[in-house]
């Protein structure tokens, strides 16, 4: 789908991302995992065009994407936002569908799968964290962009809701949509993602399936053997 090459982002003297490179493949669920402060949100905001990059490029077929091409490829769903707080969920969904010319044909299915119907007419500002998260995920899933980048899609959801959302995301990926999810709970990530990008200290420490990452961890000099447990792999590589 595209490659991120040597992405670098600085806030003054602080370097938040240093030469981060990885690839995003069509139709996969890619997990961006890393501890708090590792640069996950910064990376997503840079890819989403919300923050400017200081270095590197997003490349497709060996050619850097223009801002317009990137904007047409990737939709970024930020975490911890409450957009249009006085407006109803129903209106927010219809508005974003209209603004972005989204997938109106999937509207009812997404509402049903994410169980949004009970609070469809409530103001976004009055929703609980979990309800808001599901409403925003609905918006993200209805966007026409081939890649959905969701920052912490399971944050605020209970166990059942997390499982349902994971199933929904997977089913959309099966239908050809690419999912790029930033997740700090490694258990959540291992349940839903096909591949992973490990981010720590603003650097990409590894990329691949759990097996590939386990092999990478095992190849590190002096590293303890890491089996197919993502948590162990993550600890070994970061």
């Amino acid at each position, binding site marked *: 789908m595209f490659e991120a090459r040597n992405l670098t982002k600085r806030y003054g003297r602080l370097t938040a991302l240093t030469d981060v490179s990885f690839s995003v493949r069509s139709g996969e669920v890619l997990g961006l995992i890393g501890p708090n402060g590792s640069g996950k949100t910064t990376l997503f905001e840079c890819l*989403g065009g919300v923050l*400017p990059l200081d270095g590197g490029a997003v490349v497709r077929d060996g050619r850097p994407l223009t801002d317009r091409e990137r904007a047409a490829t990737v939709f970024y769903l930020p975490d911890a936002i*409450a957009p249009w707080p006085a*407006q109803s969920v129903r209106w927010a969904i219809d*508005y974003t569908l*209209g603004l972005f010319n989204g997938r109106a044909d999937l509207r009812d299915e997404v509402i049903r799968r994410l169980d949004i119907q009970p609070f469809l007419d409530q103001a976004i500002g009055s929703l609980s964290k979990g309800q808001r998260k599901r409403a925003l995920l609905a918006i993200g899933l209805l966007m026409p962009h081939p890649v959905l980048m969701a920052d912490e899609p399971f944050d605020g959801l209970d166990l059942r809701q997390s499982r349902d959302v994971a199933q929904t995301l997977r089913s959309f990926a099966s239908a050809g949509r690419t999912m790029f999810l930033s997740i700090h709970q490694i258990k959540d990530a291992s349940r839903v993602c096909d591949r992973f990008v490990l981010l720590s200290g603003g650097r990409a420490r590894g990329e691949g399936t759990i097996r590939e990452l386990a092999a990478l961890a095992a190849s590190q000099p002096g590293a303890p053997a890491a089996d197919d447990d993502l948590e162990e792999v993550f600890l070994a590589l970061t």
Partner: protein
Amino acid sequence: MPSRRSAFLWLVRKEWRELVVSRSWWVLLLAIGPLVGVTFISAVRTYAEASGFGGTSAGVGEAFSPLIGIWAPTFSACEVAAVFLLPFVAIRQIAGDRQSGALKIELQHPMPAIARIGAKALVLLAAWGIASLAPAAAVVLWKSYGGSIYAPELATVALGHLLNAGLTIALAAATAAVTEHPSTAAILTLSVTVGTWILNFIAAVQGGIWERAAGYTPPAMVAGFQHGLIRLDVVLVTLVFVAAGFTLAAVWLRLGVGVRRRAYESVALGAVTAAIVSACSLATGSWDTSESRINSFSEADEEALERIQSPLSVEVHLAPEDPRRADLDHKAIAKLRRVLPKVQVRYVSATSIGLFEQTSPHYGEIWYEIAGRREMTRATTAESALQTIYQLSGVAPPVENDDATFRGHPLAVPPKGAAAVFYGIWPALVVAGAVFMHRRQT
């Protein structure tokens, strides 16, 4: 991707919905009714008293014009609202998206930033249009009293306040986009407003270039329109400032662009604005739409003055704060500038107040010069200026025509029903509207 047109219309609809749930707008609407009411009722009472109502001598207000007696004070309530209430509505509309995180979603649509700001500006101007229903109600009441309405001068006053609102909205949009938090934007906007007051004060003391610059501040701009005067340079400069404000807002709303680049673009925008403003300030066209020709000499005098081909120089030995200078400026110089494009005025004074220059032998002198001939007078009236100019130029003064003199529209009626409209019906309608719109949307 969606067509730009449909996306823009979606954005306009969204901005409208965001406006009608904004408490600041409803507060503006709630406040502007009583504000207009106070000024209108007071103006009508004063007008009536001067026209002979309530035992005062009839005839005092014969030369009264509704423009000066009614519309200028009534619409001044709009100026108060534009300065102290409208900025908060605009800042809320611009900064709200950033605060809620909606901007991060909307920015992903490849719509030009200026279009985003354009949608907000359109809705905010519509909001001001709705707020202007309060002075419109005053117009209806005045008409119902049998008051005279001269449409061109009334339209000029309304245009001045619309431009002032546009300026306020553009300034608030720029500060809301540049700063991270709405409260910072509010402080910055009010600081600019206070800055224009300081500029006016400095201009009154220092004169010269300060005086010229102060002529383009919102209070000076509105004052001109409230006297029925449309100056091309003022309109152009105001429009340039409005465009610059919205463009600056568009520059800073692009979060995905580096701060350094946005800063460079802002500096370039400032330079371009300064250049265009300088060019626009050279425009000399003006239109006096007042029924009483308050900004003009009589038509006969203007025809006579237009026959003078040589440039006119005026040397005024009066300090900036001397009231005689303001008198001369308003009654003669400003009117001369409108008829004679080649008027050069030079002010000479050693101090700003002129109090200690009174004993100076030349203080108070006003020298007129045409084609090498000079004449001095100390009078600051329009009649004196015209007489001197006719003498110097050799142009015969026109025959006085009493029929052309504005006789005024005295009206001795109380402001019947105005209190009920502005203190009762208006607030009730606003509250009902707020409740209705809130229930409709959520």
